[in-house]
């Protein structure tokens, strides 16, 4: 039932001097788990707060279900909102926090009690109902906050960096718990985070935002496998970027000449001959071989740095044209190579992406802030 629709929404602060959200359109489907992903200051939290009614848009329309809510205060939007800082009322115990929504909505006492109990059982904290927020751990507090947001019966759950203040291990546990709850209760959820691993793990779809705009919306796989924007290629997953010019374009393939006359091939995506482009290659698709080997997309270089990361090993390879490539390989697959070893790196034609060279320069386009 609760679909969320944003049409041409704009929000500025400081008398228009700062544009937080810049003409965005977004459609969130019913019962979908959508994540707004982006670096800090990209406008994702502002977008969420506008959906909640905690900020009002300067322009554009926001609707929840079939109701236009653009200028409605939060109490009339029928939403659940989870704050990064929990925002549990410090003067109320867990029980009173969780049943706050039903009580201020004037529901029957039995109904409030039943829902409070159900929600607390759902987050496995019913036995802590008498505790005050200050007596709970961070993870528990966030579970109470979740139960509180859910107990007001809202079908739309908004989560503002809900795991941001938690320890790494608890983060991973809790993120799956949140997804499970959302799916069990058949809710629509919009989740804000700057952590791409978290977004990948829990979302049905992800909207990647940067500087107030949505760059791409898609499933985690789509964003990873077919990024439409050079920023997305870098922010969702990781990428090597090699600058060059298109020297040849066949029906399905494109030949790009990098610095130092190295040629690589990629899939054709409407780039003109002579155009300046950037080839993006994920570190994990690169294979690495000792010595010099020839072949398509094989580049010769030497290992400049080696790092052991636990499950992976990471090499930094200085190519013969002085460009630097990062290669990530599973730590337990194949033998590890030493620094200064001469190697050939290679990648399959269909696993690289070509983007037009950004007008404002590559660094600016990839910058997080």
């Amino acid at each position: 039932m609760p679909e969320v629709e944003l049409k041409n929404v704009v929000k500025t602060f400081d008398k228009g001097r700062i544009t937080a959200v810049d003409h965005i359109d977004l459609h969130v489907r019913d019962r979908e788990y959508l994540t707004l992903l982006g670096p800090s200051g990209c406008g994702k939290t502002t977008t969420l707060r506008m959906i909640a009614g905690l900020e009002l848009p300067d322009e554009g329309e926001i609707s929840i279900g079939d109701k236009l809510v653009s200028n409605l205060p939060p109490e009339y939007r029928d939403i659940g909102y989870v704050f990064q800082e929990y925002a549990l009322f410090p003067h109320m115990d867990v029980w009173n926090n969780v049943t706050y929504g039903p009580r201020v909505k004037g529901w029957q006492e039995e109904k409030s009690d039943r829902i409070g109990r159900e929600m607390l059982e759902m987050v496995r904290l019913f036995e802590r109902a008498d505790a005050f927020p200050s007596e709970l751990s961070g993870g528990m507090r966030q579970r109470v906050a979740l139960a509180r947001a859910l107990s007001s019966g809202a079908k739309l759950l908004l989560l503002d960096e809900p795991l941001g203040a938690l320890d790494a291990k608890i983060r991973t546990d809790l993120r799956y718990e949140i997804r499970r709850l959302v799916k069990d209760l058949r809710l629509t959820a919009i989740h804000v985070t700057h952590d791409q691993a978290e977004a990948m793990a829990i979302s049905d779809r992800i909207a990647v935002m940067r500087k107030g705009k949505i760059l791409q919306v898609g499933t985690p796989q789509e964003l990873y496998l077919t990024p439409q924007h050079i920023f997305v290629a870098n922010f969702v997953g990781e990428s090597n970027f090699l600058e060059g010019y298109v020297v040849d374009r066949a029906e399905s393939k494109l030949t790009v000449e990098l610095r130092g006359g190295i040629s690589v091939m990629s899939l054709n995506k409407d780039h003109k001959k002579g155009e300046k482009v950037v080839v993006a290659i994920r570190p994990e698709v690169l294979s690495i071989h000792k010595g010099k080997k020839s072949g398509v997309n094989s580049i010769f270089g030497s290992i400049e740095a080696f790092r052991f990361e636990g499950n992976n090993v990471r090499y930094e390879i200085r190519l013969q044209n002085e460009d630097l490539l990062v290669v990530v390989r599973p730590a337990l697959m194949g033998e590890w190579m030493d620094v200064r070893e001469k190697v050939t790196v290679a990648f399959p034609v269909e696993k690289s992406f070509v983007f037009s060279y950004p007008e404002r320069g590559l660094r600016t386009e990839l910058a997080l802030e």
Partner: protein
Amino acid sequence: MTIFSEPKGKQNLLSRIGVSATVASLIVFVFLPSFFLISFTFTRWPEVYNEVFANPLIGDTNWIEIQKYLGLSLRLAIFAVAIDLIFGIPLAYILARKKFWGKGFLEDLITFTLVIPTSGFGFATLIAWTTISGIGALFGRGIVETNYLIPGFNVPVIMLLVHIALTFPYIVKTLKAKLEDMSTLFEQASGTLGASPLTTFRKILFPLTIPAIFSGAVMAFARSLGETGATLVVQSVFTTAPIAVISWVSQFKFGPAAFLGSLLIIVASAIILPVEFILQKRGVSTFSFFSALNIEKRLLKVEDFASRKLSRLRDAIIILFIVIVVVVPIFVVLNSVALSWSSDPNTGKVTESVVYQLFGPSNYFSALLDATLVSFSSAGIATYIAACIAIPTVFLIERYRFGRFLRALLRIPLIVPTSALGLSILLLWGPGGLRLADPGIWLIILTHIVFSVPVVVEPMLATFEGSDIPLYEEASRTLGANPYNTVESVALPLSALRIDLPDCNLICSPYDFQKGDH
């Protein structure tokens, strides 16, 4: 508890001297005067008893009168504080949470009654409401007679108006500061859970700010109980306890004056301290009060309706309140000065003009100038000495275990009515006591020090507790600064920021007892 816990060697000696000197000065300048009146009453009990209860001529008339005066003072204070709360709480909320045009001006207006001499303000209120030169000009007669009483409660209307004007800023200021320090997160959370702004206020903001509201109310209550300057001007046929103290002193009847003064101190402490102690300790959790009455649901509906439809009305009522208690008196008095500047508006006589009176043969201007200079210099000296005592006191309270006790004791000078305090000082240091000073500027300074110390200490403590000062202190220590350098360069500048305007005004404002002395 961090940096002074274990001072060593030379620092140990220095710190002991510092602590002893601070404690000694607190005792001599603050605590002794606050309690002396009570001990005076006890040590001279037979004399006091004869004067109050068994006077050979008038019997226990004085006792009956004391009950009457005290009753009026208490009714007045309770009434004033109740009205302060009704208007002050929403006002503080609006000032802390809303942005609107003219907000700065509104804040200045609220502070205004703390800044101006109270007797002047009393006079302004008097002519504004009771004479034909004020609002009465519109109707051809005064609006309020000075002897009008609120039916049933027997509180004089004009006196109540003055007391409200002089006390409501305490509630507004304290609550506003507390709200500004508090994040809006809880309000947002409550809104997303479906509560209207008014419900949010009742269930979230009010319980969380109760200590601030209460400490504002305590100050307002104490201020009203001790208010003398403005009350004298508008008293008409009524006498409040502080005025009675002063008139008895001026007739050298120290017995009943000391007894009534002691009663004021005891009553104020008995009402204020226990409640404050409970509230500070436990806070207030959710109330089931309304749901127990089965009106919770109706209340929620009313709050929802009022939040949506009546916020304009609320704003209008609050503006009207400020206009009545503050703006009208000030405007009227300025207006009459302007009208009578060069000649009397009714008779046209130049000799009755403001200019003639000030600079003519009677030369009131120089008298006025002298009085103002005395007020300012005494307030300046008192503030300086008070700050010298208060700053080390803040550190004692923060660092030492007996600090909490010290802090509780420091509430007492705040709630001792100023006229009782003045009498206490007079009896302690004056000609009838230790003979260290004659009535005059030195006694005024000594009086002001007593209540200025806690007034400086409290906001500094509030800054300390609500801030990251301990964190900055630790940073300073890790960078190699010793405890004294740290206090001097980090803690002191950060906490001193809070000794702000209204507090200094409080120090300067009550010249109450000065009147009584002469």
